[in-house]
């Protein structure tokens, strides 16, 4: 899971997605991830100043997020550790959500309507309808 483990085997994507959803289930961790996504890398002190939680609380959540590979510690100014959001696990979670969000029933219903409409006059059916979109 960590980026530095070159010899690691293929990650279990289900475990990756689960860690993302577990992280997102907690409002404080959501706030931390959202702060890193919108403002870029930050130290625990930066985050404590911005969020209604103690520095110790922030540090605890950051350790959990780092363990899950969702944030990555890196050296910052004045020897402070900064945390950077890691997007790869989020993209794995997005794959999971994409499967849940895929709506084939809409387009297939639209296909049925299209065939029924165009069965009589075999060609054109001018008014296009915005049914069944991708995603």
């Amino acid at each position, binding site marked *: 899971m960590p*980026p530095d483990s070159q010899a690691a*085997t*293929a*990650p279990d*994507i*289900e475990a990756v*997605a*689960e860690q993302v*959803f577990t992280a997102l289930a907690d409002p404080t961790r959501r706030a931390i991830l959202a702060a890193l996504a919108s403002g*870029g890398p930050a130290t625990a002190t930066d985050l404590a100043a911005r969020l209604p939680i103690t520095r110790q609380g922030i540090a605890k959540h950051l350790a959990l997020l780092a363990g899950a*590979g969702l944030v*990555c510690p890196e050296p910052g100014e004045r020897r402070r550790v900064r945390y*950077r959001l*890691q*997007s*790869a696990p989020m*993209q*794995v979670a*997005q*794959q*999971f*959500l*994409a*499967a*849940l*969000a*895929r709506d*084939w*029933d809409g*387009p*297939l219903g*639209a*296909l*049925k*309507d*299209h*065939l*029924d409409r*165009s*069965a009589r006059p075999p060609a054109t*059916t001018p008014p*296009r309808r*915005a*049914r*069944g*979109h*991708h*995603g």
Partner: protein
Amino acid sequence: MGFPDRIERTVELAHPPGAVWTALTTAAGLGTWFGNEAVIDLRPGGAARMRWSHGYAVDMRVERVEEPAVFGFTWQIYGLPEDDPRRTYVEFTLEPAGAGTRLTVVETGFAQLPEDIYRKAFDGNTQGWASELAELAAYLDAA
């Protein structure tokens, strides 16, 4: 949790396979019931594209063309960045059913994750913006 990799639907259509095939594989068909506009180069490896009036567009690559029984294509996973190489595979199978058609659509590949892509994503993203911002800073400094 069960990562959903495969989605399958079957519908009975009161139209012969030929008519269903035309709706699935032509720009006029795809641009009417599926997208609002479509282009397609109907051969394996051919490119296709659908656009919707709300602005979304998707590029597809035709994979299987076996008229009038099998039509398959790959397309991007919705929500992932445009340069992400991951694609799902969609396959339509048409079987005659009385005077009509039994149409099955199977989409697979949601749970795919080649190790190298994952590693690249992990290693690449840490650099990504940082290096772009560094390049911008260097550009501005030089100006």
